[in-house]
Structure formats: structure tokens, C-alpha cells
């Protein structure tokens, strides 16, 4: 069996020496691969990966995000996506190609304060990310509780192939939507929401506990809520 070396690193630490493929948060200096973040580095056969433990959300194309409309201008909606850049949803993506500011009323579709599920359509460093709501499940989210967590912990909340999110969802009877930007919307019965939020907070606090799944399961209790 091929082995993976796991290393806890801080900025400036040498992760490995030699010749590897490497991902984000790693810099190559001569023969050495240096970590740029606090996190867990994995050195495997197919390269070096660094999973950071902390950090801001930076948009990436095709990320699914949840954001709040903060402004409307003549051509679209400005959406706060929990990042240092505001997302922009062009009106032509919503009304179609024949959109004109004179005939279409943008606030009839989304108003300031509305919460949207959207996808990052395009992003490069010179311009703000462009959003799109094309596709199933995207668009206005009309009910639920918003929970914000650190974007670096999103993969843990989702779990391996969605195992964690499914567990929480099943046990609380809630619909849970996780945005890659660390915004989560939980919808269901009031009791279910309280339980689900508690479970999400537990994952956030004990992100790297080895028996996280068991801990969350214990916190949720055995019975399924909202089954009456």
C-alpha cells in the first residue's frame, strides 16, 4: 500500500524535498516545498496537498455559494458572498438576453436583503466574481436560519461524500445547504434547527477530532426529530 505522510505545518515549514506536484498554499523554493499556511500537509504519491486550518474565503469558479443581496444597480445585483470581493449577478443572467433596464424591474425578482444560492460563474484576480443562478436549486432562499462558519471548515461539515451533512440532516429533519463560502442555511422545525446548528458548531469547534462523526452522533441523540 502506498503511504501518505501527514504533517502539521505552519508558514515557513518545509513540507517535503524532491520532486512533486503541488497545490495551493505551497511554494517551491529550489528543492524544497514550503507551507504558506497553518494546516495539515499531505505528501503522497501524486503530490503535496495542504489543507489550511484558517483563512478567508476566496472565490473560485464553479463554487456554490450563499450570499445576501446588498445593492441593486441598473445591470444587476451586488451580493455579499462572505468574501473580500462582492459577487455580481448580472440581470441578463436572470431575465435573459433581451434584458433592458428600461423594461425590467430588478427589484421584482430579488430585493436588497434577499438570500440567494448561487454559483460562481467566473472569477479572475482583476475583476469581482460573477454569479449565476442558472441550474437547479439556485436562486432565492426564502426560509431558514443562517449559520456562518470558517470557510476552511466547510469540507468537514459536509463530510466524506456528504456523510456528515446527511447525518445531521436525517437526525434533525432539516434541510441543510452549505455554501463553499462558509454560509449555511438550515431549514426545518424550530427544534430541529436548534439541534442542527448545535451540531454544526460542534463540527466547527472540534474540526480535527479523530472521532468527530461519533461525537456529532452522540450530540444529536438517537431519535429522529420531527417524526410525529
Amino acid at each position: 500500500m502506498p503511504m501518505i505522510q501527514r504533517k502539521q505545518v505552519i508558514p515557513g515549514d518545509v513540507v517535503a524535498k524532491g520532486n512533486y506536484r503541488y497545490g495551493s498554499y505551497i511554494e517551491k523554493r529550489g528543492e524544497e516545498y514550503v507551507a504558506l499556511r497553518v494546516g495539515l500537509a499531505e505528501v503522497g504519491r501524486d503530490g503535496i496537498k495542504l489543507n489550511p486550518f484558517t483563512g478567508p474565503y476566496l472565490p473560485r469558479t464553479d463554487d456554490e455559494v450563499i450570499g445576501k443581496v446588498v445593492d441593486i444597480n441598473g445591470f444587476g445585483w451586488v451580493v455579499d458572498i462572505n468574501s473580500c470581493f462582492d459577487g455580481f449577478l448580472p440581470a441578463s443572467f436572470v431575465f435573459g438576453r433581451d434584458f433592458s433596464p428600461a423594461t425590467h424591474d430588478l427589484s421584482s425578482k430579488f430585493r436588497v436583503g434577499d438570500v440567494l444560492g448561487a454559483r460562481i460563474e467566473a472569477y479572475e484576480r482583476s475583476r469581482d466574481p460573477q454569479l449565476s443562478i442558472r441550474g437547479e436549486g439556485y436562486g432565492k432562499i426564502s426560509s431558514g436560519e443562517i449559520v456562518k462558519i470558517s470557510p476552511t471548515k466547510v469540507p468537514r461539515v459536509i463530510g466524506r461524500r456528504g456523510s456528515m451533512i446527511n447525518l445531521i440532516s436525517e437526525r434533525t429533519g432539516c434541510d441543510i445547504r452549505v455554501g463553499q463560502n462558509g454560509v449555511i442555511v438550515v431549514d426545518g422545525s424550530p427544534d430541529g434547527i436548534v439541534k442542527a446548528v448545535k451540531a454544526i458548531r460542534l463540527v466547527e469547534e472540534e474540526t480535527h477530532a479523530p472521532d468527530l462523526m461519533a461525537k456529532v452522533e452522540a450530540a444529536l441523540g438517537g431519535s429522529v426529530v420531527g417524526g410525529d
Partner: protein
Amino acid sequence: MAGTKQLIDENGVRLDGRKWNELRPIKLQVGVMKNADGSAYIEWGKNKIMAAVYGPKEVHPKHQVLPDRALLRCRYHMAPFSVDERKNPAPSRREIEISKVIREALIPAVIVEDYPRTAIEVWVEVLQSDGGSRVAGITAASLALADAGINMRDLVVGCSCGLIGEQVVSDLDDTEDKEGNGDMPVAIMPNLGLVSLLQVDGVYTRENFQKAFELALEKGKQIYQMQREALTTRFFGGEAQSTEIEEAAE
């Protein structure tokens, strides 16, 4: 040099009982403020300093935006109660200069090119001051940046050295700074082996300069170990570990 004799006695012991090459006690803590993106606290001798990092965030005013990199803003500030006589809270000439040198000491370590069109703010607040607060501030600020998850090439660690009479000493405290014959704050990036801050006042012979500079490097590396420990304690609950596991079958 009337005052010089009292700063260091004939046995080479300083006022607070240290030898010429010893540091004051240092305590470092990371992640102390909930509302900051990253934060750190340092107690270095009688210094008590908080560092907080906010960002990357939008730049205001907009005309300061840099299209290809982040704007790193630093503010070093001394609380009115940080010294014996109340300090006017308005930024003094000295504080403005120290803000500038802290910025310039940190910026080679921060990969500002990864955050175009944004601002990263570093706030260094001195709650209680003793000598060497700028290097203590730099040490804490680089931890706060790492805590905020900003991409960094290395941590930055500072240490000051100086002269008492013709004797090179490490880590001057307030009295030694004021009564002594020279002060040399140095900040280094220990893994890169680069110096990012070097300030000197006083008159040094070539030998003394060399000796003081090398002492600052040596002490800086010593403080780096404490910095490391503070960061790994915060995130890994102890020393950084390395383990080997079998590759999971997908």
C-alpha cells in the same frame, strides 16, 4: 557615562538580574480576540501587547486600491495607560514611524500578490510598555497574520540588542534603552534567513556592531521557537506532529 555603571555590575549582572546575553521572560498566545480575523498577545518582560489582523477586505478610500496586490496597513499605538505618565492617545511622531517600520518588516513575509485589490490591516496595541516594544509588536503581528490565514513565506520574529558602555547586551528593557549607549532592533525571517528590519542608534565599533547583530540573530531564532510553540499549541494542541498513514482506497 555616570549612569552606565549602575546598569551592569562588576559580575556582569544587569539591573533585573540577567546576564548580558539573556532574554526577559516571554509569553505568547495566539487567537485571543473573537472579532478579529487573526490575533495574538505577547508579554515580553513588562511589555504587554495585543496584535490584531483584519482582512483581506475591501479598500477604503477606493483610490488607494492596488490592482495587483494587497495593501498592508499597520498601526502601532500605545495606550494612554501604557506608560508611567499618561500618553496622549493621538499618534505621535514616534508611533507613526514605528507603524511604518513594522509594515516594512512584515511585508516581505506576506504574499500580498495573492490578495489583489484588498486591504490587510494589522493593529498593534501596546497595553503596557517596556523597552523593545516594536520587535515584540512585530513578533505578535506575524503570529496574528498566520492566525488570520494570510499566505506567508515565513514568520517574522524581532529581537533587539544594544550597548551598555562598551558591553553588547541582548534585549534591552526600558531603563537600559534610555540610559544605555545604543539600541539595535532587528527583525528576521528565520527560515528564509533574511533580515527585514535593522535599526541602530548609538555609536558602535565595528566589532561591537558585528557582535550585537549576530546576538540579535541568535536570540531571534530562540524567540522563533516560542512563536512556533504558540502557533502549534493554538492549532494542533501541542507540538506539530508528523504521521504516516496508508493511502485510503477511494
